[in-house]
């Protein structure tokens, strides 16, 4: 779609029509005629084949040929027909035979039926005239209808003739069957019937023994019947995780879930305010204050804590070492939670940093967050230093680099020495885009490089593609920040650098996508019995489409159309939600069952997945469509309020999509509860075993 729209606004911006293609142009007419002629051509081909078939049958056959034909028919009788024949021969030897049920044929050739040519007017300058074109199209409609009608009629006539011929042939066959000698029936036909009636007993391969799982590899479905949700494979237990680390990870992910619920509840409400601006008149809940509450809570609360939680699992695992310092992990968790909590209260109270997106938290709040991240960095670096593998697995490249870059970005964004006047704008563009691309995207890619191969149980397709993507991401992504301020008063060359960098992003994105998709190669079948892989797949798809959409949006021509509209909002949801959140969910569903030994009900995981995906589509597609219209309305110079009125239905659709997404988070929270709840239902098998060993004490639960 973006490509189409890009074409719609040519680079020189001199016309405002979306596309030059039109059915009333000469080119449009040519295409229409071409399609019509193509259809007619195929119709003629079909007719010709039918006519040939009939002619074939109509040719006079010699007696020998005819005899052979009858014998062939007899040999090909099916079991039912044979038994009828035998019965018939047994009971009566003289009555009429109604044997063949199948339809068959005969005919008179209609002569050559060449389809008529359509009334093509000679082309000329007149063809360009709209009136002429409309007239031609209007004329073509009845002609086309008549041709279609004629063809259908001819086919019917041919079929009738064919049936006539078949009936004649059936008469001959019946006579032949009546005259068949007795021993022919007893030997050949009965033998043939026995062969046709042979059926497998269905125990040839399995034998008559019940299924037995000797090696713990089989999934024996004891309840047959139709399942409501597809039965997927259970997670494999990972017994060698340090329980203290496991607890830390669960807390990170639990807090992340809380911020997801909180942040999207706010987001949902903010979306509703587009439709019902007078929903409330409380200063703390006004749109301008809640919007950053939503974005910051899902950024620093949900996504950041979620990533770090998964990072605490991945980094020690791929280093094949224990985590260096569990305590630091807890400090980080506390600090980040405190930052988001304090930041939220500040924003709602009207205390913010000055309006730059995603740095609305004042510096003391962000400082807490930064220290929390620094604890993670020290922890991860020390863990990697103690690794027992020679190489550093690529996940750790991405994860550690993301943390280092996040710290650099935060320092650049909050140190005041280069923030006066336009300096603020240049830093803002840099900061907000690096925050998205270097913190969230890079970290999440690191997580995917671990979990995707693990879930597919095969190595990553190409390690070197991952390395290429890593370095090119640093090279190009760092440049693109100012593409948020194209046509503003920041230097033109800087805008151009940002646009070039955005185009360069195609390299890491295509490399990454190829790597992930090729890792799936030969293992696609695993999607249907895994509940994590669908999340990964959606994430990969949006990684490609969402990122390339970002490139498309960066060009000057597309900026004319989409900049300042809700297109940006749709894009950020496609990426932060479609990529980051889906990947995080995939990782969370992959590890928590391994840590706790408990799984969420498949039906609620399915509900989470589908509601999130469908909700995202309902959210983004109407918003992209509406904002394109909005941009066109601005280009045409229509009164501003027109563009507000125009957006109303799309904002309503966005609220509906948002509600579905929000609902999916309720399911996700429920799933988290089911996977983590310490109030465990007594596992009968587990308890029974324990009772065997220690009959005096009641069953204990294992957390």
């Amino acid at each position, binding site marked *: 779609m973006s490509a189409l729209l890009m074409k719609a606004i040519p680079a*020189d*911006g*001199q016309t405002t029509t979306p596309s030059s293609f039109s059915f009333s142009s000469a080119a449009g007419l040519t295409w229409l005629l071409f399609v019509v002629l193509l259809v007619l051509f195929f119709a003629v081909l079909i007719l010709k084949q039918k006519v040939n078939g009939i002619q074939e049958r109509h040719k006079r056959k010699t007696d020998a040929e005819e005899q052979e034909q009858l014998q062939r028919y007899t040999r090909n009788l099916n079991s039912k027909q044979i038994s009828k024949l035998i019965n018939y021969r047994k009971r009566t030897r003289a009555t009429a035979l109604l044997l063949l049920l199948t339809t068959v044929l005969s005919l008179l050739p209609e002569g050559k039926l060449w389809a008529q040519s359509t009334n093509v007017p000679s082309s000329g300058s007149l063809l360009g005239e709209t009136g002429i074109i409309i007239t031609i199209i209007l004329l073509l409609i009845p002609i086309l209808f008549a041709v279609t009608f004629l063809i259908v009629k001819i086919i019917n006539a041919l079929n009738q003739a064919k049936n006539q011929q078949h009936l004649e042939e059936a008469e001959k066959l019946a006579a032949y069957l009546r005259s068949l000698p007795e021993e022919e029936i007893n030997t050949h036909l009965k033998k043939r019937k026995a062969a046709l009636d042979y059926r497998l007993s269905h125990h040839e391969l399995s034998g008559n023994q019940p299924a037995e799982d000797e090696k713990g590899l089989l999934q024996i479905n004891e309840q047959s019947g139709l399942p409501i949700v597809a039965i997927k494979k259970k997670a494999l237990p990972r017994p060698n995780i340090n329980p203290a680390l496991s607890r830390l990870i669960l807390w990170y992910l639990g807090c992340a879930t809380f911020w997801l619920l909180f942040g999207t509840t706010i987001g949902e409400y903010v979306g509703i*305010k587009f439709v019902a*601006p*007078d929903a409330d*008149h409380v*200063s703390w809940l*006004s*749109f*301008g*204050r809640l919007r950053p509450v939503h974005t910051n809570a899902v950024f620093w609360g949900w996504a950041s804590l979620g990533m770090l939680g998964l990072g605490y699992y991945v980094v020690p695992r791929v280093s094949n070492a224990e985590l260096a310092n569990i305590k630091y992990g807890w400090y980080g968790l506390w600090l980040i939670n405190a930052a988001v909590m304090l930041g939220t209260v500040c924003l709602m109270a*009207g*205390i*913010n*940093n*000055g*309006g*730059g*997106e995603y740095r609305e938290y*004042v*510096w003391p709040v962000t400082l807490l967050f930064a220290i929390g991240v620094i604890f993670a960095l020290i922890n991860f670096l020390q863990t990697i*230093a103690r690794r027992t593998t020679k190489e*550093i697995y690529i996940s750790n490249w991405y994860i550690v*680099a993301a943390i*280092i870059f996040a710290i*650099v970005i935060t320092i*650049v964004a909050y140190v*005041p020495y*280069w*923030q*006066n*006047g*336009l*300096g*603020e*704008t*240049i*830093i803002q563009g*840099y900061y907000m885009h690096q925050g998205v691309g*270097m913190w969230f995207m890079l970290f999440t890619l690191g997580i995917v490089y671990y979990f995707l191969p693990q879930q597919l149980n095969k190595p990553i397709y190409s390690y070197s593609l991952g390395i290429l993507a890593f370095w090119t991401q*640093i*090279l190009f992504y*760092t440049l693109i920040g*100012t593409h948020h301020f*194209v*046509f*503003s*008063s*920041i*230097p033109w060359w800087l805008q151009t*650098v940002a646009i070039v960098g955005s185009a360069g992003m195609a390299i890491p994105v295509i490399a990454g996508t190829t790597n992930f998709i090729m890792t799936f190669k030969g293992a696609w079948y695993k999607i249907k019995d895994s509940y994590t892989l669908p999340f990964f797949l959606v994430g990969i798809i949006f990684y490609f489409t969402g990122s390339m959409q970002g490139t498309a949006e960066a060009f000057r021509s597309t900026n*004319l159309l989409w900049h*300042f*509209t809700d297109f*940006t909002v749709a894009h950020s949801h496609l990426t932060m939600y479609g990529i980051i959140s889906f990947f995080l969910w995939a990782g969370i569903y992959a590890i928590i069952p391994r840590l706790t030994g408990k799984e969420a009900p498949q039906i609620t995981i399915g509900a989470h997945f589908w509601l999130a995906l469908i909700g995202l589509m309902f959210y983004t597609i109407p918003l992209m469509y509406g904002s394109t219209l909005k941009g066109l309305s601005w280009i045409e*110079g229509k009164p*501003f*309020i027109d563009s*507000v009125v125009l957006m109303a239905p799309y904002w309503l659709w966005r609220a509906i999509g948002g509600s579905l997404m929000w609902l999916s988070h309720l399911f996700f929270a429920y799933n988290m509860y089911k996977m983590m709840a310490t109030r465990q239902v007594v596992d009968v098998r587990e308890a029974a075993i324990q009772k065997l060993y220690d009959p005096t004490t009641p069953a204990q639960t294992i957390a």
Partner: protein
Amino acid sequence: MELFDNHKKLFGTATIMFIGLTILVAIMPAIRNQDMNQPLPSAEPLSPEAVKGKAIFVANGCVACHTQQVRNVDMDKMWGARPSLAADYADIHRTDFWRNTATLMGTERTGPDLTDIGSRQPSKDWNLVHLYNPRIVVKESIMPAYPWLFKLKKEPSKSDVVVNVPAEYMRGKEGKIVATEDALYLVAYLQSLKQVKLPDGTQAPAFLYKKEEKKIASAAGAEPDGKALYATGCQSCHQANGEGLPGAFPPLKRSPIVMGDNLEMYVDIIMNGYDARAEYGVMSAVGTNMEWTEHEVTAIINYERTSWGNNGKKVTPEEIKKIMEFVKLKAAQ
């Protein structure tokens, strides 16, 4: 490779590369722009009230929907007479110890751009009503209402600024709505947002991506669309139905000025504003602020004279041009 198997070298290289690029594309351009650009000679610093108003603007997150940048593209012409320049932002410094610089350029235009709102809509009365609840004056608006910037008073004192809120928006409350200081500060800030004139002889940068058809149309003598001009320049006060807002903005429907013969006064009001009737708010010099030519003024007069049941005599650009020159001289005196 040694580089890839040594975590210090690997992460060190990545960090140096990232910081290097950061310095090149962010820090150096930022410092250069901060130090190189100076405010325009005629730029006035914000008044103390406007500074407080800006803080309220920032605190309420108005930048989420309102940009303050006129891009150098033709479609942004409606927001200012010239594209914004680096100099326009040069005088914006760090807010205070806790808060960063607020250029408030913004990235979303859910509401109108505010670069030049002080010229486009300077009316205090309108701004206050609009802040109390935007839907009083713009039915289709989705901007939040800011009632907490106002107080309800039974008997306002003489110094109180009373806002004329229609009964349906009072939600059954008795008394008068009075603007708080915060509301007045915010309006002072909005009124201060004006594009600074370039020094004489300086050529403003051009608007790019001009619309081809428009040029052709004006060359062929086609007049601008009066209805669209009315919607952009007049409708927020006088309303789409021409009935104005009782107690705040007068109706144009069946107005003696619109329908009457005193074209001079009519054009004078459009171009230079009006403040002769105590029961209504002050009208600013809309036409002059919007830099309307005789073609736009003619289109608006003809639209107003033929709408909402009005049937006044149509005017031509030629006669309006003469009157405009006359009222311009009169306003200059």
